[in-house]
């Protein structure tokens, strides 16, 4: 009897919950505003869990909802680690939000199948820029990068209107800096950086204070060290790249290595490794075992004078630090540096920085018209002002005022191209793995440049060739995939001779296709030459 009562109560509660949930859903969908319009909920998904973006999205949503009382915006913040899996599940399961941040885990296939291109809109003014100086400017020209960050070069379509940009900077604890040097002037060159590091060490010893010059981790350390490395290989790159290229792409770098134009003992590469080791010595011992949060914690706890990170961390660091924060460009060795000046051209240019952080409009979203309008609102000057003011991130829309705290992060055009990377880049995973596995030898107090080069010298050629094999396969797939598009565009273009846009698209595609084929053939030649060298 007692059991029956409990079962009855259980079933009753279950039924009650069901009815309440059902009512809520029905009310949510049937809800109407005062002017009789149906209430709509738009969902916006992203992975920006840092301090700043979520609050900014909230404010932008509020501003939009004020203009459109019948629309409610919900943001869904997904951790970066699970974002790719979440994305694919939502898209395949047709439960995806209306707008999804494009980037992590996204492929051309997913974009083409599940997202709506916004290409037809890019040459029209953004209606949400009405009343601003951009009122009559085509959408594409309202972004500092000409909306390049929203363009997919393989699909020849714009899929997003990016709202921000990123740069890498050194963050300084100004109070510690003043205590150590008597001034709040930030180092501008590598020499000044080293001087600050030495002074910090002396200060720490003198005051028995647990302070290190630079907070490092496996995330922040290599970020700074790789940039410094590439300052030493700039002249080497100039020697090995053919005219027109200026910067060594993976095929050029790998080809030059296989043709004995450089190796891990080349003076420029060795100098880069020494520079990495030198700067690594100013980070806390064992930093390579630590995570990003550990380094940030060390810095905000006033136990490091500097930390290197991207502009995306600015608001998080600022909110947690509780001291005056200074931000400056990476201090590179100057040309007159007695040790590191010989091989460098100078600091790196950021002129080509693209805007990023853009949302794609999902194909199966129930409220596409409204979602597109919100997407355009996010890309408007007014919303971009809210974005930069609240998030502290770089704005992407021309005419948006960067606040005092954002200004140091704006891309700087002056500077040279980066030199070749020892890890080659461009998906050379095995080479990168060998580098990463032995990286501790380069930075540990007991290791050194010799220990590191001795460890990787034997493995490096083999991994480079294995990466080249993979590159050939990838490039071949890219070319094959392009064939169907090429054929379709060609057929359509031949039938619609007067369609200028289509003709242009076909023409541009032909040039992209030729380039991809050329890269395929060059990589294949390198692999074959390695197997059977010609006299």
């Amino acid at each position: 009897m007692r059991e029956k009562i409990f079962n009855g109560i259980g079933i009753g509660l279950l039924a009650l919950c069901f009815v309440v949930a059902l009512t809520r859903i029905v009310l949510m969908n049937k809800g109407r505003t005062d002017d009789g319009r149906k209430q709509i909920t738009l969902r916006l998904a992203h992975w920006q869990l840092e301090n700043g973006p979520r609050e900014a999205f909230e404010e932008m949503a509020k501003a939009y909802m004020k203009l459109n009382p019948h629309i409610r915006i919900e943001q869904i913040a997904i951790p970066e680690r699970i974002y790719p899996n979440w994305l694919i599940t939502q898209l395949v399961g047709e439960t995806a939000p209306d707008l999804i941040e494009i980037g992590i885990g996204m492929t051309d296939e997913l974009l083409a199948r599940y997202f709506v291109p916004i290409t037809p809109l890019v040459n029209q003014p953004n209606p949400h820029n009405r009343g601003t100086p951009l009122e009559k400017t085509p959408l594409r020209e309202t972004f500092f990068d000409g909306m390049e960050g929203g363009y997919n070069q393989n699909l020849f379509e714009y899929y997003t209107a990016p709202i921000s940009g990123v740069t890498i900077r050194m963050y300084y604890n100004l109070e510690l800096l003043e205590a150590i040097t008597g001034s709040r002037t930030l180092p501008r060159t590598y020499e000044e950086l080293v001087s600050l590091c030495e002074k910090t060490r002396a200060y720490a010893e003198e005051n028995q204070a647990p302070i290190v010059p630079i907070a490092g981790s496996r995330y922040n350390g290599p970020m700074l060290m790789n940039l410094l490395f590439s300052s030493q290989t700039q002249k080497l790159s100039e020697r090995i790249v053919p005219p027109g290229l200026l910067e060594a792409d993976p095929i050029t770098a790998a080809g030059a290595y296989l043709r004995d134009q450089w190796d891990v003992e080349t003076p420029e590469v060795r100098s880069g490794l020494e520079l990495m080791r030198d700067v690594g010595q100013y980070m806390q011992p064992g930093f390579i075992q630590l995570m990003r949060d550990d380094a940030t914690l060390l810095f905000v706890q006033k136990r490091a004078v500097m930390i290197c990170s991207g502009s995306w961390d600015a608001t998080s660091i600022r909110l947690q630090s509780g001291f005056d924060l200074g931000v400056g460009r990476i201090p590179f060795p100057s040309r007159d540096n007695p040790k590191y000046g010989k091989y460098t051209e100078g600091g790196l240019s950021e002129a080509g920085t693209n805007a990023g952080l853009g949302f794609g409009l999902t194909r199966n979203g129930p409220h596409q018209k409204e979602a597109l309008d919100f997407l355009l609102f996010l890309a408007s000057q007014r919303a971009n002002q809210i974005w930069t003011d609240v998030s502290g991130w770089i704005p992407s829309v021309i005419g948006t005022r960067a606040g005092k705290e954002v200004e140091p992060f704006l891309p700087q055009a002056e500077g040279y191209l980066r030199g070749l990377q020892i890890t080659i880049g461009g998906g050379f995973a095995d080479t990168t793995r060998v580098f990463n596995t032995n990286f501790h030898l380069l930075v540990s107090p007991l290791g050194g440049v010799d220990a590191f080069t001795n460890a990787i010298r034997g493995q490096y050629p083999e991994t480079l060739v294995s990466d080249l094999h993979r590159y050939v396969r990838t490039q071949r797939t890219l070319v094959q995939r392009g064939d169907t598009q090429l054929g379709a565009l060609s057929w359509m273009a031949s039938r619609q001779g007067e369609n200028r846009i289509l003709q242009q698209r076909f023409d541009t595609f032909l040039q992209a296709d030729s380039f991809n084929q050329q890269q395929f053939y060059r990589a294949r030649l390198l692999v074959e030459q390695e197997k059977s060298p010609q006299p």
Partner: protein
Amino acid sequence: MIDFSLSNGRKRFCRSIVALCVIGVISPALAAREKPTPGLDDAWRDAAGFLIDEANRIFAETKASSEDQEIERTLGEALTLLNIQPRTASNLERAEGMLKKMAAKEGRAGVFARYFLARIYEMYSEPPRTDEARAMYQELLRSGGDDPMAERAASALVLMEIYENVSPGERARRFEALETMAGTLKSPSGLRAYHLNMGNGYLYFPKMEGSARKAFDHLMAADRIGITRWQVESMTWIAIGQLAERLGEKELAITYYQRFLDRYQRDNRHYSISKALEALREQ
């Protein structure tokens, strides 16, 4: 005797059920009628937009109403079979079979089929059937007229020839043989692709005698036709500037550097080229 008569309430219930069934049957039919059956134009659009599986389904299911439409349908199906997922040997065989049937057709369809047959031999077959691809491309150049797809065979041949693993002497001979091809090409896109591949080829093998001059000539020829992809255009302009500088054509180098600086202001190479220009002007 059983009474089959229904009470009023039951009648209403039965009528409702019947009405619901009718709606259930009619509404999908109406919905289907509202959505027109996708045609070949939709399939080409899907294929161009990377929706290859969808395009293949339309091509395969379309019932052609004329011979021309059947040719178009077959070509579309073959083209999409090359890339539907998963990529299988049997799909490739089917595509090859279909294209072979179409290869003898007159005009555009034949050119299209022969070009993609050559592509199968060159890029899809394992191991590549290089000789068959080469022969097909050469045949296309002879018989395809000024069709841009036929003239694409020239740029494909350039890549196949110069990036083959041969001795430097043999490569130089091949470059020389390919030089004669320019006179046979007529379409701007075919010529441009040929000149770009030749020019970049000479740049990639700089030890060949006279390669800088030849690279310069080919890239200039491509630029005169007009390059519409910004990545290619910017790279070509810098290359022409650097080659001109190397060949002692200072004014031309200045022109091309300046052209790059004017058009590509938001480019990581901007500062380096502005410094190069400064140095050149000071000379």
